């Protein structure tokens, strides 16, 4: 049996899945002050129908904990220590109110071009001690090519100030983009203790319940990560909600088509794309508190219109408001909503359609409109907003920068196959959106718990980036912050570099319990450059990326 629980902003959803059946679904309001307890309550509810705890093989949790901590400013005070060297002005980095700069510089090949200053670091330790700052993130430009400065800074700081918790950016990410690495390390440091606490609590609770299932956390990229491995990478868990619904859409459709996934919530709708059955990722990584990060995330566009968005006539204008006032009139609410407009006009017979008409009529009277015209205007606005956002998403994807002739000549073009509706209001709204986009709608009877189902059946993912510089015998690998000298790569060809990346993937995948998926790896990045000095080759540079891409676990064969 499989369990998926998605802790969302408004509701916490859970499903219990067995064979090809959804055995039980649960929906409870989320208590943002106590995310764990609701999550564990939902788990208890699901377990009620499980005769033997041992039959639960897998539990996947998707939680807004980290997103919430950061969004509400509950992350702990953290110093951001930057070693930016030359380039952009220091003023370009305004991430933390406690940002400190150290001298020292590394270049793109990992060569030191300016040493650290011991005195600066010692006096920084004094300053942090005096100010009572207990956490710090250290990020150096090109630390992904040479981590010695970050290591030395951590070492000296810990020597001077033993209580300081230090997070290094090269341990969190090894990819190019220093501000994103700094931001990711900073946010990681801010939420790390709370996340450790959360993992402890969950582990304890599961043990008490006698569960022996493997436990995973859903990541922003639509893949899972074993709970224990998540300790090091709490930021990977952000924005797992949209990832859950996108994986849910994949779980319900189970094919390689191009789908638009529209998750219609109370007052917002999230749009995502499945490109040939794979969730499309944001090209610049997840954006947290306005900062780009190195967290791979499903590309999501949010629209401020949902099923419960109330309709109003204000200042002589017909408007769709953004503040939820309760459910749709047809479901017992006291205001006409977007759902009501679709319900009445398209005779969908959702809930009490007479209540839809009654509440819509009040607004129509105020606006001096015929009831049908009122509904048409609302429907039109919703459909136009959603379809325009969709077209923008396609365009953005098609216009992502490319750096090779081949990619420009073979332009990518997105052809949509269908629209998948997720969420309770999908049934009302999605068919018309699909009609406008001239494709088929897809709505499943389990659409409203697709997020929890998506979490339950999402498989683990892992991306390994390898950078080799044969002239400098440099080998850098993400994840894990490996930046080391390797004397054996001097004669490497691209095949050797690829094999090395795959070896790392296997090694790390096994630790994460991913044995079943390793053979399914894909190479997503492969670059080779000859280094020519004078007129002869002095070395080669390789960049290779291999991954276990998002997908569904093998045990899942679809839902009846």
């Amino acid at each position, binding site marked *: 049996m499989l369990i998926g629980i998605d802790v969302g902003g408004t509701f916490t959803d859970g499903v219990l899945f067995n064979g090809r059946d959804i055995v039980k679904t649960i929906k409870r309001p989320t208590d943002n002050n106590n995310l764990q307890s609701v999550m564990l309550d939902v788990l208890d509810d699901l377990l009620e129908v499980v005769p033997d705890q041992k039959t639960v093989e897998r539990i996947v949790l998707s939680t807004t904990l980290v997103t919430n901590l950061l969004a509400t400013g509950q992350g702990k005070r953290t110093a951001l220590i930057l070693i930016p060297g*030359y*380039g*952009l*002005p*220091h*003023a*370009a980095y305004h991430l933390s109110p406690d940002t400190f700069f150290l001298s020292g*510089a590394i*270049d*793109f*090949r990992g*060569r030191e*071009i*300016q040493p650290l200053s011991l005195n600066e670091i010692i006096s920084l330790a004094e300053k942090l001690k005096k100010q009572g700052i207990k956490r710090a993130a250290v990020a150096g*430009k*090109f630390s*992904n090519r040479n981590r010695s400065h970050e290591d030395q800074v951590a070492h000296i700081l810990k020597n001077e100030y033993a209580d300081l918790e230090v997070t290094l950016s090269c341990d969190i990410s090894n990819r*190019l*983009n*220093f*501000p*994103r690495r700094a931001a990711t390390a900073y946010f990681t440091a801010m939420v790390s203790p709370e996340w450790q606490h959360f993992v402890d609590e969950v582990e304890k609770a599961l043990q008490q319940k006698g569960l022996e299932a493997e436990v995973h956390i859903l990541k922003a990229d639509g893949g899972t990560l074993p709970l224990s491995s998540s300790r090091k990478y709490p930021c990977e868990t952000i924005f797992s909600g949209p990832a859950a619904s996108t994986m849910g859409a994949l779980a319900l459709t189970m094919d390689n088509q191009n789908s638009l996934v529209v998750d219609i919530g109370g007052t917002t709708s999230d749009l995502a794309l499945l490109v040939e059955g794979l969730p499309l990722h944001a090209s*610049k990584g997840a954006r947290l508190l306005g900062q*780009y990060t190195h967290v791979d995330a499903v590309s999501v566009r949010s629209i401020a219109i949902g099923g419960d968005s109330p309709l109003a006539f204000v200042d002589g204008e017909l408007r769709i408001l953004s503040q939820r006032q309760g459910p749709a009139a047809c479901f017992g609410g006291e205001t006409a909503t977007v759902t009501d407009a679709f319900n009445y006009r398209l005779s969908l017979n959702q809930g009490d359609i007479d209540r839809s008409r009654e509440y819509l009529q009040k607004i129509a009277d105020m606006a001096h409109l015929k009831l049908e015209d009122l509904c048409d205007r609302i429907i039109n606005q919703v459909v136009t907003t959603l379809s325009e956002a969709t077209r923008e998403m396609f365009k953005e994807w098609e*216009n*992502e*920068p*490319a*750096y*090779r*002739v*081949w990619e*420009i*000549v073979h332009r990518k073009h997105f052809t949509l196959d269908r629209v998948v509706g997720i969420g309770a209001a999908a049934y009302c709204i999605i068919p018309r959106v699909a009609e406008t986009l001239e494709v088929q709608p897809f709505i499943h009877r389990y659409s409203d718990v697709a997020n929890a189902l998506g979490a339950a059946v999402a498989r683990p993912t892992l991306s390994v980036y390898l950078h080799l510089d044969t002239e400098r015998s440099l080998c850098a690998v993400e994840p894990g912050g490996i930046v080391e000298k390797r004397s054996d790569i001097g004669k490497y060809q691209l095949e050797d570099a690829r094999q090395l990346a795959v070896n790392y993937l296997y090694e790390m995948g096994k630790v994460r319990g991913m044995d079943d998926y390793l053979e399914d790896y894909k190479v997503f990045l492969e*670059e080779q*450059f*000859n*280094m*020519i000095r004078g*007129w*002869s*080759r002095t070395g080669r*540079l390789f960049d290779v990326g291999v991954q276990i891409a998002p997908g569904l676990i093998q045990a899942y064969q679809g839902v009846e």
Partner: protein
Amino acid sequence: MKPTGLLFFPAFDWAISPTHPEREERLLYTRDQLFEEGIMDLPGIKEYKPRLAEPIDIAAVHFAVPDLNAHLLEAHFVAAGSTLVIADAFMKGEIKNGFAIIRPPGHHAMSVSHGNRGFCNINNEAIMIEYLRYHYGVKKVAVIDTDVHHGDGTQEIYWDDPDVLYISFHQDGRTLYPGSGFIDEAGGPLAYGTTINVPLMPKTTDEGIHYVIDHLVLPLLEEFKPDLVVNSAGQDNHYTDPLADMQFTAQGYATLNHKLAPDIAVLEGGYSVETALPYINMGIIMAMAGLDFSNLREPDYARENFRESSRNLELIKKIVEVQLERYRSSQEEIEKNRRSKTEFFNEYRRIFYDTDYIHEEQKVRLRNCQHCCGFRMIESTAQQRSGKLYRVMCISIPINCCPSCRDQAISNYQDLIRFDRYDYVYLQDRIVRQYRVCQPDLEREEIIK
């Protein structure tokens, strides 16, 4: 505030040959530097994706012999198309200025193209300028060529065009390819003074180059009043460039772009792939985006290594004085040429293609006109790399051409295609954007789309 547009196209899958300076590796470290700095994430920067230029965009500038497909690779269409993407974004008001960091480069490519010279096949800036003139009605353009090599291609294309001011400073042609760009090269008889060359002695530093910017380039821009300023942004004046011998720095380049404030900059040469390009490209982007670039420098930069000699500075001052005077008295020279009884001005020249080892001979005729800057007829003969000898006639009607010149140019074309004196006869009519290619012996005519 509008962002600065950035189009980064390193053509990681194109090289002239594996060990050539124009190889895949050229912008690799620039990529590393730009990506690591995260400059594309800044709100003041908007990144664009390249597109392919259309054959018609290229035919607006070039007579490719025998045709566009003969020497051009897809990479050339992408590089040229990239400048058009930036041009569109600029004209549509999406960006305040734009920088196309692209390869292959273009400023040595002349109107007639038999192959590759100075690493260039087609002239990216000229293709962009003609596109802007036709589609957006841009009239006066200034091109400031900041590459260490004289941009003889761009100079030749606009030699007879008084609406394009071409200013180039470069290492003296007696010491560097292409061996041209001397102070007396100042434009054709009807466009005298809108070509300005400043040859500089090897080892010239930031101080010398900035003297030229402050005392010649900026005053000329002030007087010429262009609708658009283009920086033909080569990066090989740098003190570490392996092919040239100047002493310009990344700070020098950034400051130059800050002062010049180009609307559009397009990368040209620059072959110090590790020690110069990453820093200069950062500097140009920062300057164009209005970011503080005082924290930018090369790892080995030491200020005391860069002192301008007083002797060189005196020489530069003299050149600047001469060129200012030339520009200011150029109208008289043009009037004098117009009044001459000459119906056609004739010029003979030989052009050497260093990359492809071709010797081209040209006879150029320019019609003397009282109302416009005339039209050009270029008779070109060259034995191309394939061994085939081509003799072609290229007729060019510029966009600012008068009706009488245009009529005569068209009638000349029609006369010429009746005889098989030439292998190919080309008619480039920029006014209606129509480009014809005729093979008289086969009685075959094609209009380039």
